[in-house]
């Protein structure tokens, strides 16, 4: 993710220039075909030795291998075993860990909540981020102040965001709870399933808006002024102009953000959830990744928790393939 942020200034510079500036390097990072043709071709660099590029890649590959592939292989392996936490006895149980998990109504309930939660967080974080970006892009006077105010929430770490969110929704002192009481809604986070889910979504969306805002804003600034002017001459309705001209030109940004937001909702909301449920999930909603943590790190059930993380890995894999195959087709980079 930091790779994408690093590329930000490059795309910002593209305001007056051609479309090349709008294309995020991040797509290449994700393995997408960047279809670079025409004016934007990068300079080809020749290496004196064929091994040199591999040498330069080695640190990155080593990190990926040690921190991603190796643990993944271990997780897959231990998902077929029932293991004593201390590593004394481990029994091969085949698919039992998987069938146990998939048969459990509890687990399926968590999966259902995770799906709804991910959909809601992604939808609201993206749409509110886009709305704010469009509005901020239109502001002429004092726009730097608006932008800074909208962006700085991003600098808050997820657990801190969770903590602030929890205080807002605290049963005894939360201002949002006081506010809701005026309308006759008694919010009880930690006690009522729906109320807890509601506050989790609110805090998670709030945390992610600035990130989406930054990307949408720079995407908007990458749209050539000439195109906008031409559109303004052809059509007077601002909404229609946005719908037919601006939005399609923003599609690559939106697609990139969609993937990032889905992974955010699935994984990075862990800190928010942990703080909101205060270490005690009880009958509160939790996501799949939190369940992996509860069973693996708190319950010391390595086999079961490994099986769950493999399932999660498969879900993300399928989701990513789906997004690249079906949604990316509709995205035009040039």
């Amino acid at each position, binding site marked *: 993710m930091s790779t994408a942020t690093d590329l930000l200034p490059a795309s910002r510079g593209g305001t007056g220039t051609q479309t090349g500036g709008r294309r995020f390097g991040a797509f290449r990072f994700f393995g997408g075909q960047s279809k670079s043709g025409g004016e934007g071709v990068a300079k080809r660099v020749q290496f004196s030795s064929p091994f040199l590029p591999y040498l330069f890649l080695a640190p990155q590959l080593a990190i990926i291998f040690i921190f991603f592939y190796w643990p993944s292989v271990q997780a897959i392996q231990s998902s077929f075993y*029932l*293991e*004593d*936490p*201390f*590593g*004394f*006895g*481990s*029994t091969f*149980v085949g698919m039992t860990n998987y069938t*146990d998990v998939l048969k459990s109504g*509890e687990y399926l309930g968590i999966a259902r909540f995770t799906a709804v939660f991910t959909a809601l967080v992604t939808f609201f974080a993206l749409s509110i981020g886009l709305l704010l970006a469009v509005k901020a892009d239109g502001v002429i006077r004092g726009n730097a102040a608006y932008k800074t105010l909208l962006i700085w929430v991003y600098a808050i770490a997820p657990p801190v965001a969770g903590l602030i969110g929890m205080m807002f929704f605290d*049963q*005894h002192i939360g201002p949002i709870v006081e506010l809701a009481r005026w309308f006759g809604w008694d919010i*009880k*986070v*930690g*006690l*009522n*399933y729906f109320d807890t889910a509601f506050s989790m979504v609110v805090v998670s969306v709030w945390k992610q808006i600035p990130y989406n805002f930054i990307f949408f804003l720079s995407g908007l600034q990458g749209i050539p002024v000439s195109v906008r002017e031409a559109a303004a001459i052809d059509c007077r309705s601002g909404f229609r102009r946005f719908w037919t001209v601006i939005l399609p030109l923003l599609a690559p940004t939106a697609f990139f953000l969609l993937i990032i937001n889905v992974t955010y909702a699935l994984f990075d909301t862990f800190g928010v959830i942990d703080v909101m449920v*205060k*270490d*005690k*999930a*009880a*009958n*509160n909603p939790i996501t799949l990744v939190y369940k992996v943590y*509860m*069973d693996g*790190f*708190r*319950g*010391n*059930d390595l*086999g*079961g928790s490994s099986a769950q993380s493999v399932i999660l890995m498969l879900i993300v894999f399928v989701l990513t393939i789906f997004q690249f195959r079906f949604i990316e087709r509709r995205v035009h980079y040039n």
Partner: protein
Amino acid sequence: MFKKFSFAALSFAFSATSSFAATNITWWHGMAGRNGEVINEVSKKFNEAQSACALTPVSKGTYEEALASGIAAFRSGEQPNILQVFDAGAATIINAKGAVIPAEDLIIKAGHNFDRNAFIDGVRYFYADSEGKFVGMPFNSSAPIMYINDEALKKAGVEAPKTWEEFEAVAPKLKEAGYIPLVQSQLTWQFTENFFSRNNIQFATNNNGYDAVVDTQLKVTDPNLIMMFDKLKAWKDEGYFAFYGAGWNDNQKVFEEGKAAFWIGSSGSFGGLQKTAQMPFSATFLPYWGSIKGAGTNSFIGGAALFAMSGKSDEENNCVADFFQFLTSPEIQYFYHKATGYVAITKAAYELAQKDGYYKEKPVAEVGIKQLLLPAGDWSKGYRLGFYPQIREIMEREYGRIFSGETTVKDAFDTIEKEGNELLARFAKTAG
């Protein structure tokens, strides 16, 4: 900044060389805040009292995190000498045969005497095997006790109840006086595990899980336990009991603010409550049911014990034994008791605190230990259940559903028993 850092590095290097001759041992624990500081003070006292061993305490976060890091370290052969493990995790480490050296063996091998009877009754069995041999060394022990809002009682003109029947009698008057009669902070520990201990009822088969891992089953569909939760639900509907979720502090807060008459907390809450309570308070034992025959026995200990990890040299093990001896000395126990609010675990330390007049000054500090000193029953010694932290999570989930009206008490306990027994069966396979 750099200066500060290099100074720290220098002093570290210096301290490392100064204890060159001593045997180094490490202690991983799950205490933070004031309790973590007290651990550092205890270690310092030990290091100053002798020169053969140098003890380094390391905080690993929470209880769960300490256990998880201890396990990960053991698997890679980097385990500490001493690991603190909490009550619910006891079965995990004790059933991993070969992970720890029983504290009693360790102490005897190092040439010290070990007298089981020196420990107070409620502490003696929890971390021991079915023959009563100490596997873990009890360290920080607490009991669930009932804190009393003195103002509320005065205003309503009632006495603190000893039994739940008496509570039912005074609750309407407290409600009339404008108070929430009862709140609690942990339904699993206070109203489930210690419901079984205080009322002397069997919690699980196989002698509460002590005798064997295989075929151990929960007995949470016991009609008495169901009656307890039916009552709680009824009390909640009538406004005699309030429930703010599974979080400890959300429930404690109401009592601190003086809005509740009784709060079931931990004997270890005393220190903090002295600072936060906005009204005068006292404490008494966790109530039991007068209608249950043989009820009124001691409670299980909460808190944690210290385990000596295996795979260490004799020299280091002897140091651990020395430290355990040091830790159970009356003076250190008394110091720890006063500094943290956890109960003293030996009879000698209790007598020392009495002689010193500590309880005259702070009577609440004595309630926990007195409750642990009550006569023991067959079922008040402890429980040994695998994957118990997860079973607690199931209970928390179902209890939350009871009070939000999503399920009935009977169905909730059926679910807990079913899912809990599945986990116990899984655990039996891992330990096999």
